[in-house]
C-alpha cells in the first residue's frame, strides 16, 4: 500500500517503506564504499612492508605492527617525518592567525566607516576573489627567489595569509552587528581599535571560526606552492615530504611507509572536519568556499 502523508520537513512525500529501505541500503553501501579507501589505507599502514607485498590483501591486518610508523619517524635514509610535521603545524597555525588578524582589520573599516575610496577598495578585493592564486605562481616564485626567501617559513605563510575572501566574508558578517552596540561603547570612550576587539570580534566568533577552519584546511593541504618553493628537506611540509618519499623509498619498502605518512598527514584535517562538521558544511553551502 502506498501511503503518502505530509511531513513537516524537507520533503512532502513519504516514500513507501520498501522503496525507503532500498534507498537506505543503497546509501549505506555508498557511504561505506566512500570510507573503504580510508580504512584500507589505515589497515595497510599497520601491516609490515613484506606482508603487504607477499600476502593477500586483508582489511584487518593479520599481525598489526607499527613498524612503518617507527620507520618514518626514525629513518636514516632521508628526512624523518617529525620535522615536516612540525613545519606543517607552524605554517598552518601562523597562516590561520595572520589571516584572521589581517582580514578582520581590513574588513572593519569596509563594514563600518565611510571614507573616500572605500568603494574602490571593495571592488579591488572582489576582483581578488576571482583570481586563482595558481596563475601567478611563476612570478610569485621569481619574486621570493629574488628576495632570497625560498625555503623559509615566510614563503610558505605569507601568500596564504592574504585572503580577499576572508575580508569579504568578515565584512559581510560585521555589517550584521547592530551599530548601536558600538555607538554606546564609543560614548564610553572606546576608540575604533578597542571597539573592534571588544565588541565586533567577540560577536563574530562563528564567522572567524569558519574562516579559520577553511584557512587551516587550505594551508595544511597546500601542495603545489610548497612543492615549488621548497628544495631543502628540513623545510618541507607534510604533503611535500610525501612526494619526496615517493621517489626516495623504492620497491618493497615503499607502500607501508608511504601509507603511514598519508595517515599522519590526514589526521589533523579529519579531526577538524569531525569536530567542526557543521561549520564546514555551512561554509560551503553559503559561500561556495573551497577547502
Amino acid at each position, binding site marked *: 500500500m502506498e501511503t503518502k502523508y505530509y511531513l513537516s520537513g524537507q520533503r512532502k512525500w513519504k516514500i513507501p517503506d520498501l522503496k525507503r529501505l532500498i534507498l537506505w541500503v543503497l546509501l549505506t553501501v*555508498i557511504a561505506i564504499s566512500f570510507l573503504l*579507501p580510508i580504512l584500507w589505507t589505515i589497515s595497510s599502514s599497520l601491516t609490515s612492508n613484506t606482508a603487504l607485498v607477499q600476502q593477500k590483501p586483508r582489511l584487518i591486518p593479520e599481525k598489526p605492527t607499527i613498524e612503518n610508523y617507527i620507520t618514518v619517524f626514525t629513518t636514516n635514509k632521508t628526512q624523518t617525518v617529525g620535522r615536516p610535521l612540525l613545519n606543517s603545524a607552524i605554517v598552518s597555525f601562523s597562516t590561520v592567525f595572520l589571516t584572521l*588578524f589581517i582580514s578582520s*582589520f581590513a574588513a572593519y573599516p569596509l563594514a563600518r566607516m565611510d571614507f573616500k575610496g*572605500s568603494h574602490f577598495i571593495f571592488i579591488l578585493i572582489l576582483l581578488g576573489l576571482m583570481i586563482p592564486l595558481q596563475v601567478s605562481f611563476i612570478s610569485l616564485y621569481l619574486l621570493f627567489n629574488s628576495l632570497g626567501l625560498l625555503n623559509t617559513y615566510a614563503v610558505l605563510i605569507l601568500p596564504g595569509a592574504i585572503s580577499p575572501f576572508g575580508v569579504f566574508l568578515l565584512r559581510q558578517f560585521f555589517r550584521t552587528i547592530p551599530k548601536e552596540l558600538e555607538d554606546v561603547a564609543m560614548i564610553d570612550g572606546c576608540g575604533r581599535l578597542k571597539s573592534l576587539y571588544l565588541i565586533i570580534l567577540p560577536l563574530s566568533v562563528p564567522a572567524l571560526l569558519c574562516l579559520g577552519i577553511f584557512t587551516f584546511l587550505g594551508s595544511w*593541504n597546500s*601542495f603545489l606552492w610548497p612543492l615549488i618553493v621548497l628544495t631543502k628537506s628540513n623545510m618541507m611540509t607534510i604533503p611535500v615530504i610525501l612526494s619526496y618519499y615517493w621517489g626516495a623509498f623504492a620497491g618493497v619498502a615503499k607502500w607501508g611507509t608511504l601509507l603511514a605518512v598519508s595517515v599522519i598527514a590526514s589526521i589533523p584535517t579529519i579531526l*577538524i572536519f569531525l569536530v567542526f562538521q557543521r561549520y564546514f558544511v555551512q561554509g560551503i553551502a553559503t559561500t561556495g568556499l573551497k577547502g
Partner: protein
Amino acid sequence: MKTNTRSLVLLRKKVTPFLFLLPFLSFYVVMQLFPLFQNLRVSFTEWDMMSPEKPFVGLANFKYLFFSDPFFWVSVKATLLYIVLNVPSKIVIGLALAVVLNQRLWGKAFHRTAIFLPFVINSAVVGLLFGWILDPQSGMLNYFLQKFGIPPQQWLVDPTWTMEIVVLVTIWWSIAFNTIVYLAGLQGIPEELYDAAKIDGCSPWQSFWHVTLPGLRDTTMFIVIMQVIGSFQAFGNIWLLTHGGPVNATRVLMIHLYRIGFYYFRMGQAAAIAVIIFIIVLVLTLIMLSMFRKSELKN
C-alpha cells in the same frame, strides 16, 4: 588653535580606515596584484633562471607553445578530457546524493560524514592512496578482480583508462562540494511549490522533474563554472597518481606548466601557460557573473 584640532580630527578620520587596511592592502598588492602583471611580463621574455639577461622575445613563447611544443596541445586535450569526464558526472552524482541525503533516512549523520570526509584529505594523499589500491602487483583492486575471475590489469601503466581512473578518484575526493551546494539549493526551493505540485497530482518523480530541477538551475550554473575553473587548476590529485603519465595521458595544463617551469626552468614559457589559463578562467568568471546578473534581474 580650534581649527587646528578640528583639522586634526578630520585628518584622523581620513587616515584611520587606511591604517586598518594597510597590512592587507600592502601584502595584497605585492603578492597578488603585482605578480599577476609581472607574470604577463615574464611571458614575453626568455629566461632560464641562470643567465643574467632576460631578453624580451615578444610573443615567441606563445608561438612556441602553439606551433612547436610537442606537449602543449596534448595537455590542452588532456585538460578538456578531464573536464568533459569530470564536470557532468560530478553534477549528476552530486545532485543524486544531495536528493537522497535530503530524505529523512535513519543514520543520516553517518551517511553525510562518510561521503563528505574525503574532501578534507590532502590531494597528494589522495593520489598516493589510490596509487596503492591500483598497484598492479599488490593492490586491492586487482586482488578482488582476480577473485571474480578477471585477470589483473596494468592500472596506470596502460594509458587507455588512466584519465577515467583519475576522474573516478577525483569524484570520490571532491563530490562533497557539489553535494553540499546542491543540498543548500534544495533547501532554497519553496515548500509551496511542492504543495502545488502535489495538489496537481504530481508523483514524486514528476515533481523532481518539474519543481526540483528548475529550482536548481542557478545552483547548477554556479557549480558548472566553479568546476570548470577548478579543473583548469587541477594538479595534486593527478600528480601523485600518475605524474602526468602514462605517455602523457594525464598531462593536464598545470602539470605541463610545472614540468616546463620547474624541471626545465623555462620561465617564459611557463608564464605563458599561466597567462593562457588566466584568460580562460577570467572569461569563464565573467560569463558566470553576467549569467547571475541576468537571473537576478529576472527575479
